[in-house]
């Protein structure tokens, strides 16, 4: 590619890369892409995992490379870093809406001191009631908890606050 790569354009392309387990939210909106640097037509993307043991990290890394390559960027480097570590406040408003529409309760914003209280009455993504209980803080993936709604009697998952 000869023309100069523009950062806005790269961010736009990266919006195509979705979370492999929640394919409605992009890695940008999830907040796991922490920096994009373009120097001499080389694109360096910094990423950080939601949970340290997230098994999807390698897929996401490859997806970033694949999408940028598809758009003609030949020189891509992806670094996994904890310099700016992930917490659930990093999910954008657009991302929170996507989670909700997918049927997952978005994590409540918090002051980085998560305690059990904020898990107890999560708003049900199906009917909007907060008459809900935490069934277990451990769900089908490391980043989800399981809740039950006593109003609509549906069981639902939440993207866990961290």
């Amino acid at each position, binding site marked *: 590619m000869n023309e100069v790569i523009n950062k806005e354009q790269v961010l736009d392309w990266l919006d195509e890369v979705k979370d492999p387990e929640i394919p409605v939210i992009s890695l940008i909106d999830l907040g796991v892409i922490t920096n994009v640097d373009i120097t001499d037509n080389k694109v360096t993307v910094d990423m950080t995992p939601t949970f340290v043991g997230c098994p999807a990290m390698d897929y996401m890394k490859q997806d970033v490379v694949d999408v940028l390559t598809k758009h003609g960027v030949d020189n891509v480097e992806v670094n996994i870093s904890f310099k700016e570590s992930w917490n659930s406040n990093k999910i954008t408003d657009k991302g929170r809406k996507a989670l909700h529409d997918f049927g997952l309760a978005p994590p409540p914003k918090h002051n980085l001191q998560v305690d059990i209280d904020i898990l107890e009455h999560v708003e049900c993504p199906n009917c909007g009631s907060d008459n809900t209980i935490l069934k277990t803080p*451990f769900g089908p993936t490391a980043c989800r908890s399981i809740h039950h709604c006593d109003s609509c009697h549906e069981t639902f998952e939440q993207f866990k606050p961290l």
Partner: protein
Amino acid sequence: MNQTALKELLYKIADDQLILGHRNSEWTGMGPLLEEDIAFSSMAQDKVGQSHAIYQILHEIGEGEPDQVAFMRNAEQFHNCQMVELPNGEYDFSLMRHFLYDTAEAIRFDMLTKSSYEPLALLAKKIQGELRYHTMHAKTWIKQLGTATEESKSRLQTSFNELFPYALGMFEQSPYENDIIADGIFPGEEALKEKWMARVEEIIGQTDLKMPEVSEAKLGGRKGEHTEYLQPLLDEMSEVFKIDPTADW
């Protein structure tokens, strides 16, 4: 900064996580109820992932690849405390071990967020948040079952008494303890043990359980002296990897 001292610290933390992570994973499909099956499996995933991140730091300062380090060492090369390698036993035993270990681990990582060794401090800030879910889980069940029926209380008390000397073994001092403290890498095992004891007493005080009599710590794990249970665990854990260590996954 004393590199040997730093490596010793990193190895023992990562080895504890890897071995207990493997033991937790043995509950997959075996939990007493579905939620507990998933809880132990999720904590297994977290702990193995966290150990991987620490082996990665070790790799960056000259040690082997994380997979090699995890799968190709023998028991005497592991620095985990003996408590984490003990077989799962029944659920009460695994739950009590989880409580004793995770209470210490959470305090250890709180302390490490202030480490002078930056890569460790950054990782600790991340792991600290994840461990909140582990300690929350342990505390909830210890409080509930520690005040429930005669059977649940007596089972937990028996496991507590049996595990206590092993739990004290978590705080076995390193030969480099003074360097670790002087360099500001970690405030030391004694400081950790003191905070741990206070936290455990506080939670046990909210149940009908009693603190066991003070007994002699089961030491040796940090120096590579292990029970008969570690090598079979390692053989099983590394069985697939060893079929073809160069395979690309």
